[in-house]
């Protein structure tokens, strides 16, 4: 008891510093969460949360009866899984390659060029994509035409669109993703490389047996975070890149919530879907973390 008081007496300034960040989280992160109640109400715009009628789980029953919801859920999983397969390894490969570059200046230059797409908003990327991949006038199809290949409907056929969607994702995010891996790579003990080359390991061998194991914890950590997010999907990318002809694949939970919530003003349903998404997200995150702990002895939570 005495030691605690002494501890507080000595360190109270540190705790005082916490007040502002804590208040921020309470006011802006936890405060608005009372809105979750909307999911259990027949929400009336003008009566608000306090005046609307309570309906228990009726809203959820309605949601689980909507075919659009299952489609959105399926697409969310599908797009995120494919993205995980394609976009997750891309920065690792890129980082390994960048690491092998000898010229310092060229390396810096290459890195900067690779980062840039990350800073473009999806709206701009979508505009570029529509121009580049257009069926008749897009540069890609014009080039294909030169080789005698018929135009590919990159934007309007759903399978071709899937490829476009993933490719654009890699283009946008791969460069940015290398930052963390490059930082991790610099942490690998250089004596290991020397030892490896003395033992006769070539470049590829060193990449495989020294660099990769060196950044394994980083890879696992990022993978866990990714898996935790698999039920969540950003709004802008599918919304901007998608269109009516590929709606079978491009309608995901976030766009579904936007449509039912903002456009149709069915706030109860939108909130219920959002809540469902959050709960599944947490479950997946905990699951991934538990598995990671088993495999590598270190989780993130």
């Amino acid at each position, binding site marked *: 008891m005495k030691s605690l008081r002494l501890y507080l007496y000595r360190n109270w300034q540190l705790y005082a510093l916490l007040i502002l960040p804590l208040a921020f989280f309470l006011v*802006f992160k936890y405060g608005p969460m009372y809105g979750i109640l909307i999911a259990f109400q027949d929400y009336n715009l003008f009566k608000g949360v306090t005046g609307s009628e309570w309906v228990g789980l009726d809203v959820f029953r309605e949601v689980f009866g909507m075919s659009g919801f299952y489609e959105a859920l399926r697409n969310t999983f599908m797009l995120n899984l494919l993205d995980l397969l394609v976009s997750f390894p891309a920065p690792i490969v890129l980082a390994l390659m960048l690491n092998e570059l000898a010229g310092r200046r060229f390396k810096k230059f290459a890195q900067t060029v690779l980062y840039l797409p990350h800073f473009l908003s999806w709206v701009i990327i979508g505009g570029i994509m529509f121009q580049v991949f257009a069926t008749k006038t897009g540069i890609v199809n014009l080039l294909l035409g030169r080789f005698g290949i018929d135009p590919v409907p990159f934007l309007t056929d759903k399978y071709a669109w899937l490829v476009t969607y993933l490719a654009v994702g890699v283009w946008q995010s791969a460069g940015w993703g290398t930052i963390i891996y490059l930082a991790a790579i610099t942490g690998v003990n250089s004596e290991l490389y020397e030892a490896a080359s003395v033992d006769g390991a070539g470049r590829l061998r060193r990449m495989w047996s020294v660099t990769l194991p060196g950044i394994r914890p980083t890879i696992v950590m990022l993978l866990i975070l990714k898996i935790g997010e698999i039920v969540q999907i950003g709004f802008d990318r599918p919304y901007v890149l998608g*269109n009516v*002809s590929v709606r079978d694949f491009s309608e995901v939970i976030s766009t579904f919530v936007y449509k039912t919530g903002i456009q149709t003003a069915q*706030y109860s349903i939108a909130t219920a879907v959002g809540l469902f998404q959050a709960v599944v997200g947490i479950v997946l995150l905990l699951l991934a973390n538990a598995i990671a702990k088993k495999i590598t002895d270190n989780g993130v939570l």
Partner: protein
Amino acid sequence: MRGKGLRFTLAVALIAGMLAGCSQGGNKEGSSSATASDHSGKTEQVTLKVGIFDRGNAPAGYTATENYWTDYVQKNFGDPNNIKVEFVPIPRTDASDKVNVMMSSGDAPDVVFANTSPLTAYGYAKDGGLLPLDDLIEQYGPNLKKYLGPALDSGKVDGVQYSIPGRRVNTGKYENLIRQDWLDKLGLPMPKTTEEVYQTLKAFKEKDPGQTGGGVIPLGFSLTPASIEPIVWSFIEDGLTDEQRYTLSESLGYPLLLPGHKEAVRFLNKLYNEGLMSPDFSLDKDEKQVFQDVMTGKVGMYSDNLGNSFNATPGIAKVLTQNVPGAKLVPTDPYTNNAGKHLKPEYDPTGFFLMVPAASKRGVEAIKYLDWMAQPDVLNTIMNGIEGEDYTLTDGVPYRIESEETSKRMFNANDIAMITQGQDFGSDEKNWAAAAAAVPKEFRDYVVEAYKMSMTDTIRYANFTSPIEAENKYIPTLQDKYDELIVKSIMTKPGDFDKTYDDLLKDYMASGGDAIKQERTEAYAAMKK
């Protein structure tokens, strides 16, 4: 996590709204002051918030909320009545979404509007979000009542006046346009039937009269009503009964359930598969691509909102003639149905639905404002400017003076005069001449012709006096479903057309189409009694 983001935004907006409310409350005595403010100077000034569309087109030095006409309103209406008129911008694109958020956060202006659909006002009224206006109009709106006349009735829900429908003078909706110079070059006559349109489009593709080098788009098309409606309506079969019109309309704007619709889509499917229409039309949700293709001389034929192609902005016809010397874009009315009629849709004679939120304390001032605007001389001034400065009168029709100051001044005059879309000069001919007077000289005859064509064989949507509850609930979803049906049915292979169309129609009906049809059938039976 969009949902959380939304709630957060709403919460912030709500707080902002409360703060704004507090700061206003400080210098006001509450709503009771409204009646007393007739004796000007006795009470403190109150603030009336009025929505205004922001189209992002304000000329330098002006904004949507501060310009010549907002000053005019303040000086001529606000100051004499001791009211501060504050204009609140509503973005024209996504207006309905934005107004939804404004209403839910209690931050909507005292005069608010979103679109020309009565369903919006109905939805709000049903949830208790709108102020009943009967007594207020009776007491403060004699001019307004006189100006709108019986049209006011379409703003009623269960007999109570919850919104004020603006008037619409010209009810024509669309125009079809064709490149006359291409026809001349190929020695083709102006197409007069749908079949002839098909032959003409084929000739455009094969002979490429515009020398586009393979880039020719015989029929410019987009995923917008302006492209879809003129064609699908033109296929609707002759001799619809009242029962069909009432029970099979879905307030969509599109005649999906009326006989003939499927054939219209089959026609478009044929055009698409033969490469006769815009290949990426499904991506063009704002007509931008079509307009661009027309202006660069690639398109042979297309349809558009009435009058738009000849307007000074975006200046489609003007830019086309600059880009392609000798290009001649003329209105045409070629599509025919099974009886040889040129069926086409027509607007209801109502414009935007103006509402006053239930939370508003300025109902009296709102009606006073609209009533002031409804006075003939005020309305005339707002719509045309000052005589001699902005327009000259010829045969009772105001012709706009082409000066920089005038075009700057008039850029949003129509958005101030929300109680009407267009000015009524007493006869169709005069109204058309007036509409033509606003475009560059060389196009005026075409505009008159287009307006005339837009009114031949028109058909109006059959609506009941009270809205259909199921439409309020399902229409936004069904709009999406309809787009999907159109896009996929047009883009499928001709052999798969029937299956694709029928499957999508089934999906449409299951997603609310059936519910609307049933309610409409019941309402029709009730009406017949």
